[in-house]
């Protein structure tokens, strides 16, 4: 992507309130995660000497979000949990982006057998149910942050691949590509210098949306008991809270982690869909939902978003 492209996108982004709100939401979480050691009043793993009366206490002046079933400070856990979510989210999404872009680029550019094969692979992965697959793999392979990141990343590239491929297909035929070929530029050069920069903005938009997907995936896995036991994540907090606090109606333990997840996801979605709208307005509504995989699968069948004027289903108005 050229600097100019970046500047243009930036300018368009600033003009959209939805994107700004999303960005602020995300930045809050990022800052909290970075500043965790200074921000959190306690270390989440602190073994505090507790008496039974200290368990599952509601918020008070010393513990702003109360304490969990082991007497630990909920607020600190929440703050540190941001680190896990963001790490998983960004790393897994980055992985998916790299894999997806490469495959999509190669498939779209080379065409032929490589293309069909890649797309069959994508179809295959889209059919397999995500969560059960991840559950089975993590259960049997073992728990751990990197394993989770890998599993999410390796299953999440399909949408990007489809997207990149369709973009490449349309770019491939443009004049300047043919000119480059005539001049004798190598395929690699063409792909890297001419096609990739065109595709990147959309990929970035997709990647942002993928981050929110990854965060939710991690939280689901952790909630179901497969999170990294050495770390505190929001999903794991919810797992403990659900197992142990729900009958006691310990809302201070139950609600904050969930809201945190929603907060960061919605922020990312706002950013991602704003970017998408800027970069490719014709895709406006197609990616704003879950599962994006559905749109990747039926890309051909749903009519494209029409030009935004022709709705004959309105009574013609008289201007006064």
């Amino acid at each position, binding site marked *: 992507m050229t600097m100019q492209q970046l500047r243009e996108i930036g300018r368009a982004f600033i003009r959209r309130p939805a994107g700004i709100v999303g960005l602020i939401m995300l930045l809050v979480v990022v800052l909290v995660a970075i500043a965790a050691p200074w921000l959190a009043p306690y270390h989440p793993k602190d073994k505090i000497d507790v008496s039974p009366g200290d368990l599952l206490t509601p918020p008070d002046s010393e513990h702003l979000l109360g304490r969990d079933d082991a007497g630990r400070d909920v607020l600190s856990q929440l703050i540190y949990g941001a680190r896990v979510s963001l790490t998983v989210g960004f790393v897994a999404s980055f992985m998916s982006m790299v894999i997806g872009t490469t495959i999509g680029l190669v498939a779209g550019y080379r065409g032929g057998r490589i293309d069909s094969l890649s797309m069959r692979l994508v179809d295959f992965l889209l*059919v397999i*149910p995500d969560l059960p697959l991840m559950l089975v793999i993590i259960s049997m392979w073992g728990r751990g942050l990197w394993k989770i990141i890998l599993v999410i990343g390796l299953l999440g590239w399909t949408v990007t691949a489809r997207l990149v491929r369709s973009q490449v297909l349309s770019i491939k035929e443009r004049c300047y590509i043919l000119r480059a070929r005539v001049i004798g530029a190598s395929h690699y050069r063409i792909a890297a210098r001419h096609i990739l920069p065109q595709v990147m903005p959309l990929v970035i938009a997709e990647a942002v949306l993928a981050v929110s997907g990854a965060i939710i995936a991690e939280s689901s896995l952790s909630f179901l008991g497969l999170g990294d036991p050495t770390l505190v994540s929001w999903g794991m907090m919810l797992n403990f809270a659900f197992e142990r606090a729900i009958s006691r109606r310990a809302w201070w333990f139950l609600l904050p982690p969930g809201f945190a997840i929603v907060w960061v996801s919605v922020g990312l979605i706002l950013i991602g869909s704003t970017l998408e709208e800027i970069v490719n307005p014709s895709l406006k509504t197609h990616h704003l939902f879950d599962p994006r995989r559905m749109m990747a699968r039926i890309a051909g069948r749903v009519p494209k978003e029409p030009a935004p004027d022709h709705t004959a*289903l309105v009574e013609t108005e008289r201007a006064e």
Partner: protein
Amino acid sequence: MQQSNYLIRKVLFGLVTLAVVVGFNFALFRILPGDPVKAIARSPRLTQEMREKLRVEFGLDKPVFLDLERLKTGDVIGAFDTQFTAYINALLHGNLGISFRSRRAVSEILAERVWRTVVLVAAGETLSLVLGITLGLVAAWRRGTRADMGILLYALFSWGLPTFFLGIILLILAQGLLPVGGMVTPGLKPEDGWVYWTDVGKHLILPTLTMAIIYTSSYILIMRSSVMGVLSEDYILTAKAKGMSTFRILRSEALKNAMLPMVTIAALNLAYTVGGAIQVETVFSWPGVGRLMYEAVMTRDYPVLQGTFLLLAVAVIVANLTADILYSVLDPRVKAG
């Protein structure tokens, strides 16, 4: 002619996918690091009898894929006497192994619980589809108005909401008003007839609602996009020029066209809905196969885990295939290729 071509391709693809899933399931048990079978075989929880059964069923002392030794001696049939063949053989007999925890046949456990998940998913999907189609239609028709914005906002929000967390929220909100766990109040039995079934129904409300709130949004967005595409087509203008009222146009011209993709979507969605069902069943203790999977994760009951995964994957593959077939039947354009 084109239609059968299309179908054959789809069926073939379905079969290949199935084969890969089965193979993957096999590989999972044996190839992933930290081979749990060997570890479990040494686990004190297993009786000697069970260990022997495991050994026989999974052929743990046999080679994995192909017995090269026997192949060399010309014994081709014997060369296939491997773990893999044993596994396939077991599968074909409907044998999915034995639960580590309950010592019952996995297939039996699944058969017992699967209908409960089917009920939940069916209820959730139906509600989602109805709401999604209606709201999507409204959003497209009233595009740009506050109704449209509101609907889109809802869709955006529910994408960022984890299913299990929504379940927890609803659970907290509804405590006291609606039953919040299990499938039926203890003590009631199917023999109690109507009372039993209404009780089940009451227990079904919250889980269904959770699923519906989450999945409606994707249907809304697709329906909306689809209807918008349809409304911009020339034949809608023709219909209006003919003197049709808006309602009639929506009903007879737009609806059928816009709903065509929904068929495929509902099936493809199943891959995702199944994941949601696992979460919902866990939160609401609904005793279906989703909850079973969660319990299997907790207790490291690997045969159950694998068997459930296989079941779910197969169900989704079959559902997708059915949807592809249905789509080709419904859209006359596909018939002509």
